[in-house]
């Protein structure tokens, strides 16, 4: 589905390029509505899917393209990057690509929040175009559909007078597109709004946007949409025409191993900062404990209120070579608190798996040694194995 603009720089230059504007148009919609399940019909080189995978709200991304090739599509940039393993997403994300026609009724595309058809319909022959509304609006029936297509009124501004791409079967003017869209919306109970990207140059405002876009929103019979959407997913009879060519899932905090590690790391970061202040600040011996006299709260990255809350929680202390941080103290740190939703019990259970807790399970225990001043040079005890 080649939808590139045959633009001559001399005539019109879009900033940012108009293809990018189309993708940003979709991204803005996703930001506004917080779509969870999105399908892109005619995903092409998957740039839109790639851009959408960064949205925190998105949990399920599907692409369909008639020309998706399995082997050549290692999925490259759709796969989780190394960074996704260091900072996992909050929510799961699965990306699946299918090869097949966008006008086939495949039950795996039902129940989506958003289906995008960016520069797709103008590639469809009349038969497919006729089937398109019934399949996408009638059968897939997502919460929202975005359709973009060239606005032929804009074409005279380009040097070539023909279609923008040899594979285009038609290019509609605004009236043609809007009539088609309104009919479809009416038939399948959607409301539609028209917009576009690629502003016309000064003096040619009458031609409208370079790309015209219709945003279709499903009319809801009942306002309690969320309660319906869940069971709805299971209603469909499984029909699969599409061939899955690629699938990947992302690490996320919904998976226990990533949650545990992320929480432990967050706790250790707070503990390390406390320890470093503890070691550098004044302290006093109370029984077998050494307690800090001053504040052990970091200055940076916290609001006044957050610092005050931390100050009110039980203080860390040391016994011998060990340093103890009460769980209550850790829970006062906003990032830790957010991860466990304020639950000491959850904090205790999860930390116990990766770190060491004290006897009565009320505090995390770490070594007091400050490695930055440590140095190993004990010359006569170093065996050559250690040196090299």
């Amino acid at each position, binding site marked *: *589905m080649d*939808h*590139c*603009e*045959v*633009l001559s720089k001399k005539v019109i230059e879009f*900033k*940012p*390029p108009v*293809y*990018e504007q189309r993708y940003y148009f979709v991204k803005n919609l996703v930001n506004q509505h917080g779509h969870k399940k999105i399908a892109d019909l*005619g995903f*092409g*080189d998957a*740039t*839109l899917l790639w851009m959408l995978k*960064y*949205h925190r709200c998105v949990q399920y991304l599907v692409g369909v393209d*008639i*020309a*998706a*090739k399995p082997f*050549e599509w*290692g999925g*490259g940039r759709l*796969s989780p*990057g*190394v*960074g996704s*393993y*260091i900072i996992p997403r909050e929510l799961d994300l699965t990306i699946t690509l299918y090869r097949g026609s966008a006008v086939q009724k495949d039950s795996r595309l039902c129940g989506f929040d958003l289906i995008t058809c*960016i520069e797709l319909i103008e590639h469809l022959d009349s038969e497919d175009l006729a089937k398109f509304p019934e399949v996408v609006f009638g059968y897939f029936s997502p919460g929202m559909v975005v359709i973009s297509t060239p606005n032929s009124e804009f074409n005279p501004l380009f040097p070539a007078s023909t279609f923008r791409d*040899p594979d285009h079967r038609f290019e509609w003017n605004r009236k043609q597109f809007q009539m088609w869209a309104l009919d479809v919306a009416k038939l399948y109970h959607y409301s539609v709004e028209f917009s576009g990207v690629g502003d016309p140059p000064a003096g040619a405002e009458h031609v409208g946007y370079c790309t015209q876009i219709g945003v279709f929103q499903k009319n809801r019979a009942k306002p309690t949409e969320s309660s319906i959407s869940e069971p709805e997913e299971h209603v469909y009879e499984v029909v699969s025409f599409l061939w899955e060519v690629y699938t990947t899932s992302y*690490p996320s905090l919904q998976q226990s191993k990533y949650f545990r*590690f992320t929480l432990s*790391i967050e*706790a*250790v970061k707070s503990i*390390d*900062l406390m320890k*470093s202040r503890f070691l550098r600040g004044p302290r006093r011996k109370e029984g077998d404990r050494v307690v800090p006299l001053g504040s052990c709260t*970091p200055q940076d*990255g916290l609001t006044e209120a957050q610092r005050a809350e931390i100050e009110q929680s039980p203080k860390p202390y040391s016994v011998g070579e060990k340093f103890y941080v009460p769980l209550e103290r850790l829970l006062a740190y906003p990032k830790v608190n957010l991860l466990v939703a304020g639950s000491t019990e959850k904090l205790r259970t999860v930390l116990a798996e*990766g*770190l060491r807790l004290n006897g009565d399970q009320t505090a995390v225990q*770490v070594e007091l*040694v400050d*490695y*930055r001043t*440590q*140095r*190993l*040079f*004990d*010359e*006569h*005890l170093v065996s*050559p*194995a250690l040196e*090299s």
Partner: protein
Amino acid sequence: MSGRARVRARGLARSPSAAEAGRTCAPPSRSRSPSPSPTSVDTGNNEASSTSSFVGTSRMSQSCKYVVSSGDTGCTFTERGGKIRQDFKDLSVCTREKLAHVRDCKRGSSGVPVKLVANLFSLDLPLDWQLYQYHVAYVPDIESRRLRIALLYSHKALSNKAKAFDGAILFLSQKLEAKVTELSSETSRGNTVKMTITLTGELPASSPVCTQVFSIIFRKILKKLAMYQIGRNFYKPSEPVEIPQHKLSLWPGFAISVSQFESRLLFTADVSYKVLRNETVLEFMAGICQETGMSCFTQMCEKQLLGLVVLTRYNNKTYRIDDIDWSVKPTHTFRKKDGTEVTYVDYYKQQYDITLSDLNQPVLVSLLKSKRNDSTEARVAHLIPELCFLTGLTRQATTDFQLMKAVAGETRLSPMGRQQRLARLADDIQRNKDARFELESWGLHFGCQMSLTGRVLPSEKILMQDHVCQPGSAAEWSKDMRNCKILSAQSLNKWLIICSNRDEKVTEDFLHCLRRVGSSMGFNVDYPKIIKVQENPAAFLSALQRHVDPNVQLVMCILPSNQKSYYDSIKKYLSSVCPVPSQCALTRTLNKQGMVMSIATKIAMQMACKLGGELWAVEIPLKSLMVVGIDVCKDEFNKGMVVVGFVASINPGITRWFSRCILQRTTTDVADCLKVFMTGALNRWHRHNCSLPARVVVYRDGVGDGQLQTLLEYEVPQLLSSVTEASSNTSAKLSVIVVRKKCTPRFFTEMNRSVQNPPLGTVVDSEATRPEWYDFYLISQAAGQGTVTPTHYNVIYDDNGLKPDHMQRLTFKLCHLYYNWPGLISIPAPCQYAHKLTFLVAQNIHKEPSLELANSLFYL
């Protein structure tokens, strides 16, 4: 000009007109081909950057096939004459052909044969296999590499062929019908482009170019197995080992390579771990701030961060931090490629849905490697500290004993564990459909794991003064030599002990033990003068200044803490200002219950050596042989300086040593001063033996990848001219051997369905060696836990013409002679001495030690 200044200067030198070529402050994540190309080309799986780039202006579904891409492999043909991967460069240095005595056979004969398996896998090719190299020209010429690749790959004539193409040079495993093939393709703008494909070479599988192409094929295969390339290696982040206490994750993976070994093409894989710190650069900076305060915050950040490699959160790229720009804030704007201006905050929000929390953080600056040679424009990337992670361990972290123990505990793999990982990798490669298809299309067959035969060299006897002992285990013979007298020792009569006021008792107790063990080993230790001082480094130093005179034989310092400043100031003063051998020990060590005797024994032996004593020897059949060890390392503080250490034996028994060291200003690790050192050593030998040595064997350690040719052209002649000029008639015969502790082959012995480390003294001189070199592997150290790494020896120059067997055995003998360890070590003793010397200078002294100390092992 400092590196930092250079970065600045280059950044500023940008002229506005050059803005087209390499935009500076665009976050690197959005580099796009310069011209709005009508076809979209996804450079596919081979290029890390592809994960992050907006490619193409269209959504053409025909995505491009794999592309031979650069990564950091630096293949000749991808980078068009750019950097060749350094270790490939060494492989084209054919030293063996000049050595007549090993041209036909370089194998030894003594010892007991042992069956080994290696981490090598055979790669089979049809006998007549060839790689066809083509040049591709475009009319009209097309600048965009991506477009060139897309046009060629989309052409039907090539669609079903295995190919690798970088935009100019095309490799095929099947020959095209004609020598010159004309193809034409159409861009989606409708322009016709003519491509002329001309055959330029037919390469046999043994060609180094093929090696590079094979490496690219395997890189692609490992990516199919869900591994990520970081640097040169491949890792699996989905199976991390986590060490939350130290904020670390370890990603298991492999270092792989494909190359031509002695008789065939082999795939090598070794288990490797990537250490990732789960801490952003911003958090790291906050830590520094809390520790040092604001006054020297910026300097400390620069000191600790510049030169480190970071990984960004949003793409798969790594960057080196070349500078920190404190004047740029996330709220500042930068110009995107399309000309629009956007703030960093908005950019990351829009693009990646990431909200930056700290709006006052500076930006990190990284110089981007330019992919094209012709581009003179230095491109830099601005990175936000909050979105960058440190990879690897910082220097400070490596001194953290607890941390290193935790890392070692997780990464140390038994031979069996390692073998299982390898087997799984091989299995994955063989089973994966895509991997198999890729290999088959090139005509490659991934075969089985190599087994080969090594030999276990006969064990050595340890010669003491009046006793010859055959150690129970060559790994350590301290028990065997208990109550034996050491070969020779100077009596210690006039010496000092400096200790803190509090440690008098410990010192006395220790001294008692020391004198007792000394006398039993034949080392007379008289009662010293004991000086008690305050507990601070300055007090120790001033005591040295007051009490040490040239008649003092040795100074011992009992240190109350392991603060670096104690050790550094003492060693600096006594190595160069007032050269007297010195011995440091920690109070804590001397206090260790139940270990006092063994500690005293070790210290007594070190002290004997520091006075020029000899501890033990092995039989050396060659009667007039000098052995030399050379090592090179970088100065810890001054990165522009390297420390070269040179240690030569000065008696036929190889028990006395002459040690020299120099700091030289050079960026390469190549020693400049060898002629002077060699001549000094020969003079010293002559003074002791009234003749010159008949043979000199030099072991050179600390050689980096790609330096072999330089060594041959630059170092060997220095050594040779010194040896030749030393005598008017027959000069000594010279051999030069490059020692490498880090080599990828690993060997295991199979024992009752399990695998183990090979026995000590195992030599491998076939199959895993290289046809172009006179080389062998020797396992001379015991690995208590984990898998032993063999040491690789490459004889690059050899006038001596010793039989390979003798060369191997001599090398093995020399691994017994390191006086700091009563047991075998992984490299010949002279290399370990040179290493110890350079390490002391690079870490603590930062100055040339005095020549007066050259006759003793003062640095042990």
